[in-house]
């Protein structure tokens, strides 16, 4: 039993560098995917508020659709259908696009909450000052709407991080796929998969702790 434990540790140490390479891809996909989700989500949130129904209704439908269908199927859709339309991208880029689109639906709701919380008077003041809608958003609304929602966005970032293993299904060699490759080579799934679980747990706990810290600091600043 003790020998087994020692050899397991030795094996874990041996495969750690390969897993960390996978982790780099995981982190890269998370960062790029979330950057995309932040930009797209904001555009969606603004489009949903539009008084032009031809814009706001379809946007609302797209958000519902993205939120109620599985990320895995969306990834397959992008991965297998886009090449038919003549768009060919690397699996990683496809994965980033999929993550970005899926999470844009979620971040757009967060932005919406932030924008709705800005007092009406701010909008009226912007009209009184003869600002156009672009200026109103940029200089008046968003600077007040975004800081309070940063913790909520942080939670979305953590969720996205935990969804990146889905990219393994479209052949991206991220953390989970790296562990599966080791498992397939050695038939020893226990150690690599457990390590992956531990890495995810540690990183998301650290991230969640960071978000909480941010939240307390922001409440203090507001108070």
């Amino acid at each position, binding site marked *: 039993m003790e020998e087994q434990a020692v050899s397991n540790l030795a094996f874990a140490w041996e495969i750690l560098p390969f897993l960390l390479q996978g982790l780099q891809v995981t982190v890269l996909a998370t960062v790029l995917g979330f950057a995309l989700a932040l930009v797209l989500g904001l555009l969606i949130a603004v489009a949903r508020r539009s008084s032009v129904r031809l814009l706001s209704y379809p946007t609302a439908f797209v958000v*519902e*659709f993205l*939120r*109620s*269908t*599985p*990320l*895995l*199927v*969306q990834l*397959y*859709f992008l991965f*297998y*259908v886009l090449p*038919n339309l003549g768009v060919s991208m690397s699996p990683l880029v496809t994965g980033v696009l999929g993550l970005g689109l899926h999470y844009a639906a979620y971040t757009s709701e967060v932005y919406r909450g932030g924008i709705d919380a800005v007092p009406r008077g701010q909008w009226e003041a912007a009209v009184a000052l003869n600002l156009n809608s672009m200026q109103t958003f940029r200089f008046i609304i968003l600077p007040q709407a975004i800081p309070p929602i940063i913790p909520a966005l942080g939670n979305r970032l953590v969720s996205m991080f*935990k*969804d*990146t*293993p*889905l990219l*393994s*299904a479209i052949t991206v060699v991220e953390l*989970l796929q790296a*562990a*599966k490759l080791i*498992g397939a080579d050695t038939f*020893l*799934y*226990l150690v690599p*998969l*457990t390590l*992956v*679980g531990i890495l*995810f*747990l540690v990183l*998301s*706990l650290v991230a*969640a702790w960071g978000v909480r810290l941010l939240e307390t600091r922001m409440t203090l600043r507001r108070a």
Partner: protein
Amino acid sequence: MSLAEFMGPLLTGALITIQLTVMAALFGGILAILAGVAKMYGNAAVRAFASVYVEVFRGTSALVQLFWFFFALPLIGIQLTAMAAGVVVLALNLGAYGAEVVRGAVKAVPKGQWEACLALNMTRVQALRHVVLPQALVAMLPPASNLVIELLKNTALVSLITIPEITFQAQTLRAATLQTTAIFSLVLLIYFLIAMVLVYGFRRLEANLSQGLHLGRAH
């Protein structure tokens, strides 16, 4: 192959998807209540156990958990069928997220309700079972609705451990026919429809259950 011919396998798969969702929702719901109550009213050991469960399942990826239960557990002598592993992981996942929902809803029940139970000489378990949880249940429904949609979406993951649900069927059809656009569009549409039905069902349930409560709430 025509659209109609795709529908056969896809609907068979959709049925399994629905089965998975319902089973995991039932077990996960029970787990959520147990873990939520344990975190609030358990002794130190029970609280610690419940917290570790919730943190581990919320802190790791559902797909990693699934692979761990399916590929790694057999190596320490516990062999689950794909279907069992799928339901277990989906339920454990839902239970971990649901525990927080249960906790929030129970905390939101006014303190006077507990005091009234005390006055009526009820034990804590009786108070929880007959007075507090039934009221908390209504407050749980909107977040539970979201969690069940997340569960429905998570069922797609079990296609990767060979359960022939709808996403798995789609992959098989894709390999056989290469008609990717039609297949995956249909699959997305079917998921969307199931989700809409679930959301509608939860809204109806909420409307029904909250009917008698207005009197109790307005004090």
